């Protein structure tokens, strides 16, 4: 029970609070760049939690997973996003269809709901409440971002947040899935992002904007 041990304890018990902080900030963020930064921060926290879990549970392969998370979600993806924004040189705000205040309230409601959900379902899974609630609220926030932000990039980001939530849930409930599967999932995420990048280029080429809410030629 050294210093590291205490650190892991702390991380596992209280880091989820920071997650709530990130999503609240995401709700108010007006710039794509800042949202990306927040996402990176969020991923970093998750990575920390992964490592902590690995240390606590003595599961070597989870270290690898943690490393993957760090490399991909904290380093690679945000860089890719910055690249994209530079290349697309679009206006850089997120084009929210809800005012920041509304967003904050909604996210707060989400957090409350996820706690409620955890309390009602919690009996099933014997895990600390906060992280699970954090996971669920990440999922819901991701969904909320996708629905309320009109920029293609922000939809991608929302998807990633949602992804984070699922990943976190998996981690804290089952200490992650078998390694191969995890790797496959990461691969999928990367490919998906790559494709979405291609499509954002195509959208900006063909429509001269990135506002997905304006893509309404196909209906009925």
């Amino acid at each position, binding site marked *: 029970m050294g210093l590291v041990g205490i650190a892991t304890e702390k991380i596992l018990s209280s880091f989820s609070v920071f997650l709530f902080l990130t999503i609240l900030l995401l709700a108010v963020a007006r710039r794509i760049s800042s949202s990306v930064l927040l996402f990176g921060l969020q991923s970093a926290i998750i990575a920390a939690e992964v490592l902590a879990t690995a240390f606590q549970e003595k599961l070597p392969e989870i270290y690898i997973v943690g490393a993957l998370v760090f490399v991909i979600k904290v380093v690679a993806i945000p860089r890719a996003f910055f690249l994209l924004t530079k290349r697309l040189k679009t206006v850089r705000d997120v084009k929210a269809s809800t005012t920041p205040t509304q967003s904050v309230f909604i996210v707060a409601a989400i957090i409350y709901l996820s706690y409620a959900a955890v309390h009602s379902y919690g009996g099933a*899974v014997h895990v600390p409440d906060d992280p699970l609630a954090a996971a669920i609220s990440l999922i819901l926030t991701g969904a909320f971002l996708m629905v309320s932000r009109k920029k*293609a990039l922000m939809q991608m980001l929302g998807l990633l947040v949602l992804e984070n939530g699922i990943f976190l849930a998996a981690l804290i409930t089952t200490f992650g899935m078998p390694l191969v599967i995890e790797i496959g999932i990461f691969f999928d995420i990367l490919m998906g992002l790559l494709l979405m990048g291609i499509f954002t280029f195509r959208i900006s080429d063909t429509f001269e904007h990135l506002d997905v809410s304006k*893509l309404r030629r196909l209906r009925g």
Partner: protein
Amino acid sequence: MLLLLPLAIPVFGAGLILLFHNPRAATRLALLLAGVEIAVLGTVVWQVHTHGELHQGRYLRADGLSAFFLMGIAIVSGLVLVYASGYLRHTGEGRFSSPRWFYALVFLFLFTMISVCVSANLGLLWIMMEGTTLASALLVGFYNTEGAVEAGWKYLIVCTVGIAFALFGTIVLYLAAVKAGMNPASALDWVSLMNAAPRIALDPHLVKLAFVFVIVGYGTKIGFVPMHSWLPDAHAEAPTPISALLSAVLLNCAMYALMRYDAIVSRSVGPAFPHVLLLIFGVMSMVVAGLLILVQRNLKRLMAYSSIEHMGIIAIGLGLGGPLGLFGALLHTFNHSIAKSLLFFSAGNIRHNTGTLRMDEIQGISRTLPQTTAALLVGGLAIVGLPPFSLFISEFAILSEAFAQARYLVVILFLAMLSVVFGGFAFHFFRMLCGEPDRRPENSKLIPSEYIAMGMAALCVLFFGVRIPHVFGRLLQEAIAVLQ
């Protein structure tokens, strides 16, 4: 070893094709590879049929159910590639829009779908389902037009989100399994899950939760209402062969995944819960899609909605369960894929010759395109479920199961929707087929490749309506046996 082959061929084939810049050569190679692939798949199916299921490591397995779907994939993809070889006379511009990319992506697409059918591990299954989306997204956006890009984006985002929920569902199931004391290494393996199903039920609520997420997730890919929104766009904007692949193979693969989960859940918490959900989604899809068919203006969107409706029918068959229900559902997946690809092929010809897919601008093609009309007619009669075509058989089976279980609400809606859909198709087709054509296209004759593809499909539809071959019947029974 045999199981690796059908996965390896498409991957390397895709890489190989990318090396050929000459469209003709690429086409030839693609057809060659397709032939080999089909042969291999055929042997796989035959092996499964004769020696029971095949294994490959911990992650690949092919049992009766896989064999049945593999057969469907083989047949349809063969038809599609033959048709496509003649279809790709003109392609969109931009990167990824040349014939070689087309074929390469198609082979990747096939790879993902095949591996969906042969993956023994639910995690792998999920990865590959996501893979299908990724592989086909570029194909949907192949033409690079406004519509194509828009459809592609919607397809990518909506399906990825849906699939994400499926992942969550998988995790929850995994959690339930692990908590039930299964070894985490094998807690995602379908067979061991089936064997341990009763044990998993020690927390039934968790299992149900898992199924809810899975049905929403994979339901998005299947095109259940209200998660169907991507489907009409993608089908309408993709190149015709791809529309055929999407609606005839991809939807079936998603349905296959759902079947796997349904089997586990039914065995662990009893069939009541999952079947109710399946019935709800099935009926909802049937009703909404059936009504929307009435008011379509674009031929391919019409087909897309009819695909949704038929997925609804299949879901109803699954939800009813019972020997006839499963029989009907599985048979319907096959019949529908053949008939629907036939319809898409004819739609493609019509677009070639009339230059549009807007049904109110098409007239009198029975005079200008007799052969295409014949194909369209056969496909149409089959798709609305009239004898002597194959879909009549499967719908007959599903209906009799529904009546036998005295589910009167379901059957009333079912019959009503059949009539509505019939009305819709009859209305649209009469307007297109009859009347005086405004202008005569230059080449109304089918080119050989189209002729082969459409002819085979039409024969298949008719033949399976008259009788079910013995071997086919056996395969079907084996598939059903896997699920029960």
